[in-house]
């Protein structure tokens, strides 16, 4: 017992070294269990986004294809934290990183089952995407979330930001396009691979490595992290 007590300080170095080694073996942002290997792009749209895995339409992607980092943002149109992130944080990310060509931004739908109208909202957004109005409709859906989440009148929120002609096209697509949910299904499949447990969740993709950040992130700390990622 006594000899054990004497050598214990020395023995304690072993787990410490193992632990430090294990921590240092990680890249600053990588977790091998969460890395999803890239697969060849499946669609024409996906050919422009080689860093991502799911087949996605171009209207969900913004920023320069030359950007070394892609931020994949999983949101649910009816989730209040997503609303806060979309309206408060995302404009700053777009201004400082997307517009400057540093980061590509990819919106991904992750419709939570407990939300009653999120599927309808996502259909409207994706229908708007088909006619090149995804961003403006997504913005309107988040801005008016508190209204349509109560009464289910998604159409009214969209009607405020589209011209009558575009609104009619969107309504028709929402009613008739059987493939309108395809990108949502692909996004959710990718979300399952990313082991998503909440929205909003960002997946930062760099050099094929996918790093998941779950929950609402304030811009100042997100900025510090993105700057670090871009420098590394």
């Amino acid at each position, binding site marked *: *017992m*006594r000899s054990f*007590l*004497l050598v*214990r*300080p020395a023995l*304690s*170095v072993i*787990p*410490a070294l193992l*632990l*430090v080694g*294990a*921590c240092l073996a*990680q890249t*600053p*942002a990588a*977790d091998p269990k969460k890395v999803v290997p890239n697969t060849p792009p499946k669609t024409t749209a996906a050919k422009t986004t080689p860093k991502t895995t799911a087949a996605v339409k171009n209207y969900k992607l913004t920023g320069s294809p030359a950007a070394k980092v892609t931020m994949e943002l999983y949101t649910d149109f009816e989730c209040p934290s997503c609303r806060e992130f979309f309206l408060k944080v995302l404009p700053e990310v777009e201004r400082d990183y997307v517009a400057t060509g540093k980061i590509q931004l990819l919106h991904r739908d992750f419709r939570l089952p407990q939300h009653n109208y999120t599927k309808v909202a996502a259909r409207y957004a994706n229908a708007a995407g088909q006619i090149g109005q995804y961003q403006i409709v997504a913005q309107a859906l988040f801005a008016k979330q508190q209204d349509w989440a109560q009464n289910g009148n998604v159409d009214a929120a969209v009607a405020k930001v589209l011209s009558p002609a575009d609104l009619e096209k969107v309504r028709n697509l929402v009613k008739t396009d059987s493939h309108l949910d395809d990108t949502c299904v692909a996004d959710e499949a990718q979300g399952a691979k990313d082991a998503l*447990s*909440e929205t909003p969740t960002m997946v930062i993709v760099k050099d094929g490595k996918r*790093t*998941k*950040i*779950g*929950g*609402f*992130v*304030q811009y*100042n*700390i*997100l900025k*510090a*992290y993105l700057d670090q990622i871009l420098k590394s």
Partner: protein
Amino acid sequence: MTSNRKLARPLLLIGQIALAAIFLAAGYFKLREPWLQFAVSLSSFKILPDEWLEPVAKTLPWAEVALGVAILSGILLRWTALLSSLILTVFLSVLTRSYLLGIHADCGCFGSGEPLGPKTLARDSTMLILALAVTAGAFLLRKPNRVE
């Protein structure tokens, strides 16, 4: 008294190893994730100023690892155990405050993805009791067997 000490010493050792394991695990699981994820957890408690989030998220996991190693080594055990008790008291206070205020926080105690709830509070209370027991044991059994 001597037989009590004989019994108490292995118990203290077990408690010491368990306490060290808790801190090593807490530090390790945080360090496996990007520091931003822990900063998000810290932010969810709405208690730290924004400018503190990054430095705390970057240093606290390493401090936990260092404390775990120190407790495991047994060097200055009274003081490292006391420090662990103080730290766990602060953690438990923050968790309890957030729970009572109805803040939907992510504990972040052993990595992300653990919503704050009664289970978290029960677990952290148990850890605090363990830390206090180790602290008391370390002070009561101050190195009678230590050989110069």
